[in-house]
């Protein structure tokens, strides 16, 4: 078996940890921490879409920023195309940045209002070093066309576009270096349904055309199901379930996933049915607990959950879940 035979994953994340220090609340208390990421591991193969779902405060945006090397990581490793990015400084990273780009949530806040579309879209080319003006123009025109914008839009300013068009500009910016990986943090959640569909379809088309890999972060399960090949569910800075989309959505092996799926309102389903209700709010981002992260809100909680932390173990071919009772859940399904 030779090295080349094994495909290198586009993104490989191992045991990523990120804790933020809180300011002191009182003179006499130790400063607290926000435990945003507590050892997250996954990998994404070329040309696939990997979805990360979870509620606010589960650490999904922190994960995106750490993968993009936009803030310091406490420990763990992030390999992009096999190259470790944790620990590199900004200058060392710069040439490598062409391989991974990002699309942000807010189509209004992510484009500098004082720059023209041409300048915004060409921005990541800075990582490539010097290229000729003609080459720059050619690539901008090309990428604008592929996201469905017109060539003469380069002279316009962001405020002349609608939210959906702005998100196309943001996608064009991410595409211009022909990256292998695009990290998209809630790219459609600020858009109206009719426009959201346009952008989702565009993302799908671009993947087919360029073979780009997505790490797609969303709180909307239906959107993730539509776009992604594989999904990881996050809760309090940990992945609690991971698997290919069909498995995970049809036969969830973690109670949290099941509750999330149940909580999504479905059009045309009639007046609401009875279902398992989640108790309490997302709490405890600032405390580290013994045992399962989900114990406070879990309807199935038992003594063992408070003592032992369930590992993220396989429950199927490619399906992993971190629950002591996964087998029980799968049986019921």
């Amino acid at each position, binding site marked *: 078996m030779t090295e080349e035979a094994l495909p290198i994953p586009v993104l490989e994340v191992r045991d990523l940890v990120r804790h933020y220090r809180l300011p002191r609340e009182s003179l006499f208390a130790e400063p607290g921490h926000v435990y945003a990421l507590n050892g997250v591991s996954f990998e994404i193969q070329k040309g696939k879409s990997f979805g990360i779902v979870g509620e606010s405060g589960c650490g999904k945006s922190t994960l995106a920023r750490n993968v993009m090397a*936009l803030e310091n990581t406490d420990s763990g490793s992030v390999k992009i195309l096999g190259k470790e990015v944790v620990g590199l400084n*900004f200058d060392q990273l710069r040439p490598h940045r062409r391989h991974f780009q*990002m699309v942000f949530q807010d189509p209004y*806040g*992510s484009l500098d*209002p004082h720059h023209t579309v041409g300048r915004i879209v060409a*921005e*990541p080319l*800075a*990582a490539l070093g010097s290229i000729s003006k003609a080459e720059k123009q050619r690539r901008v025109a090309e990428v604008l066309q592929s996201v469905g914008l017109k060539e003469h839009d380069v002279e316009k300013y962001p405020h002349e576009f609608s939210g959906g068009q702005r998100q196309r500009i943001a996608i064009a910016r991410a595409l211009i270096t022909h990256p292998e990986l695009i990290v998209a943090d809630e790219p459609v959640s600020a858009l109206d349904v009719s426009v959201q569909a346009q952008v989702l379809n565009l993302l799908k088309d671009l993947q087919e055309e360029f073979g780009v890999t997505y790490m797609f972060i969303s709180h909307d399960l239906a959107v993730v199901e539509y776009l992604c090949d594989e999904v990881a569910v996050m809760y309090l800075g940990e992945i609690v379930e991971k698997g290919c989309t069909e498995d995970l959505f049809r036969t969830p092996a973690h109670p949290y996933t099941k509750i999330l799926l149940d909580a999504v309102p479905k059009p045309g389903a009639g007046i609401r049915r009875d279902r398992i209700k989640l108790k309490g709010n997302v709490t405890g981002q600032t405390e580290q607990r013994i045992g399962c992260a989900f114990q406070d809100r879990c309807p199935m909680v038992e003594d063992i959950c408070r003592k032992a932390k369930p590992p993220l173990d396989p429950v199927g071919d490619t399906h992993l879940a971190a629950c002591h009772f996964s087998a029980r859940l799968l049986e019921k399904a």
Partner: protein
Amino acid sequence: MVGGTMTLFLLICAAISLFWTPGSAYEIVIANRFLPPSADHWLGTDQFGRDIASMLMTGTQNSIVVAVVAVSIGLFIGVSLGLLAAARRGWTEEIIMRLSDFSFAFPAILSAIMLTAILGPGGVNSILAIGLYNIPVFARLTRGSANAIWTREYVMAARASGKGRLRITFEHILPNILSIIIVQATILFAIAILAEAALSYLGLGTQPPEPSWGRMLNEAQTLMFLDPMQAIYPGLAIAIAVFGLNLLGDGLRDVLDPRLSRKR
């Protein structure tokens, strides 16, 4: 609009006075003291027979020079410090902000008093004092607005593109806070004119025989019972200048406000 016109008028007055004034602002002709307004002396003469209109016009130069230099000192040093604080964060920011906090305890006139106590009264010292006072004002404003821009997603996007802090500061931060700084500069320009007038009035600023609005008021005050009108003109000149600049600042704010321009 009105503010712009008034400011322009002021500049023109200053420019003309470089070459020509209706009478002489310097020549002392005792025979001509306290002349009422006439064709020769538009606003009359003072107790030394100097032409008041000419003194006012020449005084414009003085006010503008002091204000321009003082604001520029504050602008360049303050904005650079503010940008630096926002870009570096951490202890750099802490030091710069503590220093600026601290210098707030010494407003322009207080520092001018100290400076003149050391170096003696004079125009240069008042410029220095006002300029020093402007530095923390600009530093704070710049740092606050720059910090807000640094949290924007487009800055995050620029960082994801591999741009360094210096480049982001000049390509993204500065253009986006420029309008706020311009507006503030206009207002501080007005404040500088006021401060210069106050210092000259106290005898700490521009020294005779150079005409200055503040000192004209000082001299007029002793003659309040004799010729109250003399106390009116220079004050009016200051008020018009400051009023015009304030209006200009408000107007610029409306034109440059990103919230408004975004809607268009």
